[in-house]
């Protein structure tokens, strides 16, 4: 294993990170692991567990911030067919690596969380959908599941409880869209991964194989053992009024110490980027940063004091002194979002137009093709960017980008990928308008010039 980059001995998720062989059951259990699952299965009811997670204020870490306890409570109390917990380990959002960090270093933490969550929602069989490229996490989880079976923590009577439990792994085969929950379930059913048009019945009624299903992110589920062990109140001491706890951030790009950091929600991005990740490279200035993977609208470099609060970050008041981009989420304007926690940092020597071009290539390439604005708009934007960057562009290309971003947003697409592509264009075009004009109208790149002079 390479050198570990990120938080060790953090408050919740990473409390035992850095311990040698933490990925083995003996070490994990020696530190106190599996106490929570034992407690859950032998002393608590399904309802008590769901209430505890509700009370903790935990919200999903896959990007949508939805209350985990409420999601669990939507599962039926009785079902004629099996019910499933499906863990989303597809992690493909550009800039996000935290789920990998958690699975590689502490696979048993995720598996213990799965044991508790599956029991809470009355499921006997959980599935982990893991992206195909994750070799080490896959091996670690496979070995760890073997260790659990050996100990009897999975099987007919885990911890002596009358609740048979099994955990299965399914490997993905490439395609960003598999992380979207409907597409993920289609993929697990052996189909092409195209998002479902969710209207009732929702996954809690009819999810994978037509059975009641709960989908949760790796980090979300990995947090559960700590909450059950220490209590909802202890967890809720961390965080803000409506966004409790700590969360993982991946910091990448132009910083001194890229890594996966655990930080209390409510601190600022300056605490994260300058405090934990060491700030800009020597002699450089942070020009732009994406708070939550490439899908979270980009922010200008002088706004690092923005809060990591999941709701507060959306407030357009954060954009002090900057124009407000035409961003739309569910009919409301917003500044940006916490998303997946993948924080990408870019300094003054890199061109904002080139960065946006690369991201649009990504969204165009990963569009599943089901909706016209997404399928056509992405490619259209890529061509406009190419034209601008070739030095042959003009105002018309900027206008095209503006039309495309408007067409992608506001519920015109079936899933969040289309909106995200629109947000990338809208936020970049607003905050770095000067660079777009330099390229389109004057065939000039100030970032490249800055890099050349340096």
């Amino acid at each position: 294993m390479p050198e570990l980059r990120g938080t060790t001995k953090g408050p919740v998720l990473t409390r035992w990170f850095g311990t040698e062989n933490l990925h083995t059951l003996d070490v994990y259990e020696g530190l106190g692991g599996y106490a929570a699952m034992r407690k859950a299965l032998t002393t608590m009811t399904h309802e008590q567990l769901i209430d505890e997670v509700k009370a903790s204020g935990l919200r999903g870490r896959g990007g949508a911030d939805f209350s985990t306890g409420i999601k669990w409570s939507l599962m039926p109390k009785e079902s004629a067919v099996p019910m499933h917990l499906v863990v989303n380990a597809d992690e493909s959002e550009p800039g996000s690596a935290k789920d990998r960090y958690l699975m590689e270093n502490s696979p048993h933490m995720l598996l213990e969380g799965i044991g508790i969550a599956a029991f809470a929602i009355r499921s006997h069989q959980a599935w982990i959908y893991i992206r195909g490229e994750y070799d080490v996490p896959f091996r670690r989880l496979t070995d760890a599941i073997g260790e659990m079976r050996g100990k009897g923590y999975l099987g007919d009577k885990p911890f002596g409880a009358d609740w048979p439990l099994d955990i299965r792994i399914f490997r993905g085969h490439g395609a960003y869209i598999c992380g979207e929950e409907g597409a993920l379930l289609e993929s697990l059913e052996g189909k092409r991964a195209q998002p479902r048009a969710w209207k009732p019945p929702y996954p809690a009624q009819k999810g994978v194989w037509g059975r009641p299903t709960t989908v949760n992110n790796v980090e979300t589920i990995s947090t559960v053992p700590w909450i059950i062990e220490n209590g909802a109140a202890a967890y809720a001491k961390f965080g803000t009024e409506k966004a409790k706890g700590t969360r993982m951030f991946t910091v990448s790009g132009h910083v001194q110490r890229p890594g996966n950091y655990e930080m209390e929600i409510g601190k600022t991005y300056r605490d994260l980027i300058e405090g934990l990740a060491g700030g800009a490279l020597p002699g450089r200035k942070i020009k732009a940063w994406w708070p939550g993977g490439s899908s979270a609208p980009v922010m200008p470099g002088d706004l690092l004091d923005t809060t990591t609060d999941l709701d507060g970050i959306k407030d357009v008041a954060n954009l002090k002194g900057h124009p407000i981009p035409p961003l739309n989420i569910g009919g409301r304007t917003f500044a940006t979002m916490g998303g997946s926690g993948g924080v990408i940092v870019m300094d003054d020597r890199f061109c904002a137009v080139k960065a946006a071009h690369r991201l649009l290539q990504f969204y165009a390439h990963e569009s599943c093709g089901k909706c016209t604005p997404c399928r056509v708009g992405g490619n259209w934007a890529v061509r406009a960017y190419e034209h601008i960057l070739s030095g042959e562009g003009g105002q018309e290309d900027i206008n095209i980008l503006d039309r495309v971003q408007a067409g992608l947003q506001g519920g015109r697409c079936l899933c969040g990928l289309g909106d995200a592509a629109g947000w990338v264009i809208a936020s970049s075009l607003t905050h770095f308008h000067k660079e777009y004009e330099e390229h389109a109208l004057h065939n000039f790149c100030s970032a490249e010039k800055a890099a050349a002079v340096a």
Partner: protein
Amino acid sequence: MSALSTHVLEEIRALPPQFPDIRTAVMPALDLAQEELGYLTPEAMSEVAHALDLDPGYVEGVATFYTLFHTEPVGKHVLYMCTNISCKLRGADELLEHAMQQAGLKEQGTVSADGLFTVEAVECLGACEYAPMMRLDHAYHYDLTTERIDALIAERRSSPRSGEVAPKAPEGSAPTPRKRATKKKADA
């Protein structure tokens, strides 16, 4: 003569009972086929369909949707080089050019004359704190430099059979294919 060997076909036929629905066995089955042949030929896909009692069009539809399935031949070692934003900010584009040159390739996705290499630019591989990075022979390689790439390529030239063998998967979920393509448009 079938494209797939008897034992692989047997393994494929044993997959469905492990899943709640037979179709969930399609990808694990295609993994086994690709593992054996290096890539998925039309014959292989139709044999998979036959073994699982599914429509060949359906199986092909799945195989062509996912980027880790190959329907064209690839080199013995595929360098999946991340060129997404975090890696690009740290020099991925130059490294991609360099790797192509060193591997003796003019175009992504093609096979070098010695049959050893294919280079593919891929999207974020979820290891952005180690950018620039790539996946090669079932392992991630971090903090890439031109020197590091040269060394990795040279190692594989001197012992062409050094490709790490895929780990055995647990029940049902078959190992990832030994060779994969990545930059394929998901036709809608």
